[in-house]
């Protein structure tokens, strides 16, 4: 069926347009948002598309393909646990926790959804979450904030990403504490140990806070570590307890050492405080650790391949848009070209 030459475009931003539109369903929407207020020239105010934007149909197909590639079996297989051979251990009684875990039919995706729901709850009701564990959430915040303020971050977008990630990590730590507190309350015998937090958290030296305060107070006083002052202080034969300097004598001097053309640039080494902050930072969550496309990857179109033989996809099928390499593969493709809309 011909869809009258209309190609749906799925972009990340949506615009209210008169008439009707496909809108990504990202959550409960307000009824007001569905009724656009400004109907003038809405179509031409659409954001520009980049090369990596795809039509909704293509995106759907890719999503389905990836889901299929992520499965263990082609068909659903329900494999029951076979009965035990003779000589196995007698079945002892399970504790309530264990029984709950063993009977759980949840998949990883279910657990991930639960976790996201918990985070969303902590976000929507932060006051309760914060009040609940004000004392415990506190120590994780400075560590998470330190790397972005103190380290010479190489590029602006990455620094922004890091701050986003670390802020989210702090939030998540709060949510986790909350969950644990609830769990503690649910336990039959809640025995609050003698300050368990003090034991679990590594000893945090006092001077770390001092360093951060000076950094926060005068961010412009020390703009960038200039090579002749900072680098000299922080170059490799330095006093560091965490990563001690190379102990052996340096290699023999060479007459070319002083040559400015041959001298190599040594980036300023992180101080012990920075290292300490990095080493004690809380883990990121599962979703934060997933790498995503940066600016660089977004800029170029992705490579496309022939759907039949795997060579470069230089030609598009005029009916369905599948890429093929040349006429021979196009003919092979046309034999089974399916043009059902929305496939």
């Amino acid at each position, binding site marked *: 069926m011909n869809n009258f030459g209309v190609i749906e475009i799925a972009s990340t931003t949506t615009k209210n347009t008169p008439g009707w539109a496909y809108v990504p369903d990202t959550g409960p929407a307000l009824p007001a948002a569905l009724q656009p207020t400004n109907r003038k020239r809405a179509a031409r105010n659409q954001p520009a598309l980049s090369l990596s934007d795809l039509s909704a149909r293509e995106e759907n197909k890719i999503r389905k393909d990836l889901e*299929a*590639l992520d499965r*263990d*079996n082609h068909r659903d297989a329900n*494999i029951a*646990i076979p009965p035990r051979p003779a*000589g*196995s*251990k007698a079945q002892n009684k399970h504790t309530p*926790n*264990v029984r709950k*875990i*063993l009977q*759980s039919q949840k*998949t990883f995706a279910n*657990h991930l959804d639960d*976790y996201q729901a918990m985070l969303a709850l902590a976000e929507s009701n932060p006051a309760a979450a914060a009040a609940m564990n004000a004392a415990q959430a506190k120590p994780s915040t400075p560590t998470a904030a330190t*790397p972005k303020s103190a380290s010479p971050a190489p*590029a602006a977008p*990455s620094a922004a990403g*890091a701050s986003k990630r670390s802020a989210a990590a702090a939030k998540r730590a709060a949510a986790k504490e909350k969950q*644990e507190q609830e*769990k*503690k309350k649910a336990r039959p015998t*809640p*025995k609050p140990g003698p300050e*368990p*937090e003090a*034991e*679990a*958290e*590594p*000893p945090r030296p006092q001077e770390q806070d001092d360093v951060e305060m000076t950094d926060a107070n005068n961010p412009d006083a020390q703009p960038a570590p200039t090579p002749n002052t900072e680098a000299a202080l*922080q170059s490799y034969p330095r006093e560091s*307890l*965490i*990563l001690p300097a190379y102990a052996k004598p340096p290699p023999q001097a060479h007459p070319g050492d002083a040559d400015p053309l041959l001298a190599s640039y040594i*980036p300023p080494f992180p101080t012990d405080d*920075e290292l300490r902050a*990095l*080493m004690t930072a*809380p*883990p*990121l*969550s*599962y979703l934060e*650790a*997933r*790498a*995503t*496309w*940066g600016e660089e*990857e977004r800029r170029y179109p992705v490579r496309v*391949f022939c759907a*039949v*033989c*795997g060579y470069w996809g230089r030609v598009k099928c005029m009916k369905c848009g599948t890429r093929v390499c*040349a*006429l*021979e593969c196009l003919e092979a493709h046309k034999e089974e070209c399916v043009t059902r809309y929305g496939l």
Partner: protein
Amino acid sequence: MSSSRKSRAAGLPAPSTTLVLDNGADTIKAGFVTGDTTDGPRVIPNYLARDRHRKTYVGSELEKCRDFGELAFRRPVEKGFVVSWDAQKEIWDREFFDDKAPQRCDPSETRLVLAEQPNGLPALQTHCDQMVFEEFGFASYYRGIGPAFNAYQDIQAIFQTPRSPDTPVDVPAEVILLIDSGYSHTTVTPIVQGRPLHQAIRRLDVGGRLMTNYLTRLLSVRHFDMRNETFIANEMKEAVCYVSLDFKGDLEKTWKGTRGERREDYLTGAGIAKDYVLPDSHTTFHGVVREYEPGGDSSRARKAAVATEDVLTLRNERFVVPELLFSPSDIGMRQPGLADLVMQSLSALPIGLWPGLLANIVVVGGNARLSNFIQRLQMELLERVPDECVVRVARPEDPVVSTWLGAAKFAKHEHVERLAVTKQEYDEHGAGWVARKFAAGLGVDA
């Protein structure tokens, strides 16, 4: 810390035997450390498999399986984390706790060191702790991030750094950048003094399973339907796939040409094409790789008629499949390739650490066995990092058991005493306390 030391001193002494487990999505690596002796890891399939005669094999029972056709799997580990504990318990019971188990141990006198993937979900980690103490009843337990255990190995020996024999070996290694490319996914973990730098851990959701499934799809489109033959496709992937050092050139060599044309490279195979003889499930049960016969289809058809064997000619399938690690966007995944993943991880760290990390990149996990993997990674990284940086990429002799070997070294190191939690402590403080203690890790002081 002091009170926990006291309670341990008051309680039982630390158990002398340690069960070291690397519970992967595809295989378990398991072995014991007693005192100074380490008995090497056994690699156990970590799944329940059912063949076409509806017989089920649990874990290492798969050795008895002859016919791998239409094997279906049930895996307790999803995305690197134990999810289905009833299946996992069955496998552990049969391997470690039953009377006739091949690696029998008594949990109440054993310490467990368990390697997990980074960035786990807290609920799943709690489940794991509860199962270990409440169901199996281990005397002492530590659950740590698998990549970080690798730091306890002699890393410079992997790089074959020239050094005098009396040089002391740093344990844990000072700085390494560890890439773990396993069955479910690939992670990049910078490690300083054995402590992972959590803010810079990044994950790419391309692993062995995705590559096997992708190969299965390609073969199903081009040759015949292999969608139910995951096991055979996996064997094929391990036998023939390689990472291309010149993707464009290799792709050009394997192209047949336009209509009517048959290019010279295509006809001769150009050293890339290989024949793969599929098992027939009657006399042969494993596939065999053969050199490509340039004679064309006619001679092979004649031969096949005599031998009745199924032969696949693999051309660009050999390198397109591992290419997913370096360019996941080829199948529409919106994730960066492995080299960009490393750069994203580094960009979360101060530049001062870059030279050390780049000069000590270790690749472990099953995918590291693909030939040319480390060369390609080094090549791509050199294009991305500043000129002055030395980039060294290496893989251990057996990348699959590398994490286990590191964890075994860790089990002998004094760090394990600081980190492990006893059953008494668990009973006293609860699962939340244990999770916090494991998450806090070693702290900073050496």
